[in-house]
């Protein structure tokens, strides 16, 4: 196997506040290969956004990436770089797009000016050339009449158009890795599909890798080849997308899938995972999911499970891997018995 494009080892991002230490990301390791599309799924508060911001070293005070964490990208140790070298990687080699393009774009400048700004902070390209590249990029991301549209302000564009502009900004310098943090969450379903299609198309064309962060398993199924499931600051399961959907191993992944409404299915109520995500200030001892887990037994309360190898490229942080017979006897999770519902 060749060197991965991005290699994250034991990433820990903690927030030290007056209320204590929030261990938002607590020992995350994964790889992304060149031209691969990887999805990160989890509920809000599971640490997926903090993970992506950590990759770009955009964690603000009081958050810190703990010593011992390791992020290697294109053979460079990102955590050892000085600030200026790190800045040069942002936008240039790793770019990021956000959930809400309206708030991520500056309302007082035209979209063309904002696209043109990206190459201008990285090289001494002239104003005119930068504008020409901005217009070209608007065409690439599928905006009709780009020369005219470049002169529009963000509020004059629809949500889908704005997300296309954001993607265009991110791709101005042909990065090797695009981090997309919930890129379709704020959009209509039909526009969502178009944006995902655009991302897939661009990935095929430019050979970049995509790290897609979402809470929506449907989005992951459509557009990634490998899925990382995060819970309580940790990776709980990782597998190829088909393998994961065909045979989810971790009870949390199972729960997420059961909670997904399917077309043509008649259900009185949506299935939910009982309880809520625990607090990052005080993760539960043992398995962090045990209070919400229908299979949990004594071992889960005391012993923090490692990532067990389930199959080729499939790992799961669940003791069921060594005691599979327990799966036959589900029970009410403790969180449900306590009457706590999400």
């Amino acid at each position, binding site marked *: 196997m060749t060197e991965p494009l991005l290699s994250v080892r034991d990433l820990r991002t903690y927030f030290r506040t007056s209320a204590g230490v929030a261990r938002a990301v607590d020992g995350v390791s994964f790889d992304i290969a060149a031209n691969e599309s990887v999805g990160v799924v989890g509920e809000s508060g599971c640490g997926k956004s903090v993970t992506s*911001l950590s990759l*770009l070293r*955009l964690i*603000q*005070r009081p958050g810190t990436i703990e010593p011992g964490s390791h992020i290697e990208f294109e053979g460079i140790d990102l955590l050892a770089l000085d600030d200026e070298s790190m*800045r*040069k*990687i*942002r*936008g*240039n080699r790793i*770019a*990021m*797009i*956000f959930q*809400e393009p309206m*708030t*991520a*774009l*500056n309302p*007082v*400048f035209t979209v063309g000016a904002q696209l043109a*700004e*990206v190459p201008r*902070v*990285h090289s001494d390209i002239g104003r005119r050339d930068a504008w020409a590249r901005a217009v070209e990029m608007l065409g690439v991301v599928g905006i009709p009449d780009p020369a005219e549209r470049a002169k529009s302000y963000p509020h004059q564009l629809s949500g889908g158009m704005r997300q296309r502009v*954001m993607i265009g*900004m*991110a791709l*101005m310098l042909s990065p090797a890795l695009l*981090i997309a943090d919930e890129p379709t969450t704020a959009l209509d379903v039909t526009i969502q599909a178009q944006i995902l299609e655009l991302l897939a198309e661009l990935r095929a064309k430019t050979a970049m890798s995509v790290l897609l962060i979402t809470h929506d398993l449907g989005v992951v199924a459509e557009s990634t080849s490998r899925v990382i499931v995060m819970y309580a600051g940790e990776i709980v399961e990782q597998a190829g997308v088909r393998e994961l959907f065909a045979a989810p191993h971790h009870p949390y992944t199972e729960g997420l899938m059961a909670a997904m409404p399917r077309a043509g299915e008649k259900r009185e109520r949506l299935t939910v995972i009982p309880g809520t995500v625990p607090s990052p200030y005080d993760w539960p001892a043992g398995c962090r999911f045990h209070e919400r887990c229908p299979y949990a037994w004594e071992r889960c309360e005391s012993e923090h499970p490692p990532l067990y190898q389930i199959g080729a490229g499939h790992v799961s942080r669940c003791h069921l891997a060594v005691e599979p017979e327990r799966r036959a006897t589900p029970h009410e999770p403790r969180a449900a018995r306590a009457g706590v519902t999400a």
Partner: protein
Amino acid sequence: MLVLRWAAAGTLVVAICAALWRAAHPPRGATGARAALARYAAHPSAVLALIALVSLYVLSALAPWLATHDPIAILERTLSNHAPSRAFLFGTDYAGRDVFSRVLYGARISLSIALLATSISVVVGTLWGVTAGFYGGRLDALMMRLVDAFLAIPRIVLLIAVGTLWAPLSMSALIIVLGLTAWFDTSRLVRAEVLSIKDREMVVAARALGATDLAIVKRHVLPNVLTPVIVAATLGVAGVIINEAALSFLGIGVPDPTPSLGNIIRDGTPYLASAWWVALFPGITLVITALAYNLAGDGLRDAMDPRQVDR
């Protein structure tokens, strides 16, 4: 001849006001500056204030051309404290100088000082606020505690202290001193605004694409603090004018015999009972100027608030 010049100046004032009035009635759906001007024009008091300011600036700018007498030359001792008449519209002061001409020139000096001093305070206050807000942490705490300390000293006391310490102040020194004692509020305002802007998603997004601090300040922070700064500056001019007048009144401001509004009022105060006109006319001018700036500032605040919906 002089009548013709005054007529020309009056026409100029009317023309400027008419042009502004037309600009304030843009076609439907106008955006940006014109829509803001239209919102401004919806406030009658703000419109009056703007007319007053336009008149003040045109008349004082043309002072050498419009004055009826030399503002400094002592006409004749016998004409000391002469009541207003056709020859001396606002009368004469104790030294027999024409108050009307002195008020024209004095307004010119006072307005210029106020504008320049406010420019200094805006630049210093904005830089201070942006630096504190943007870099945060200990630097922010230190910078803002300094501002708190300065604000704890009444500004006029500070001015008198500086004024007497380095008396007599030259005109440029006066401008700098007035400017450097007027930026504290601006810096607080700017800092608060920067704090709210710097955590917005657009700033994180810009950082994620490799923007430098300077680019973020230029593209995201400054355009967004511009509105409150302009409003604060407008209100600030009124404060500076009053402070300058106060200093001049106390004899540590604009050096004699150069007229400023404060100077002329001081010259008239001892004779308030017998020659009321000497202090009254510059006093009225001062009040009108300060009031007009305050009203214009209020109008601007509404006009430039993007959340304000067009009625």
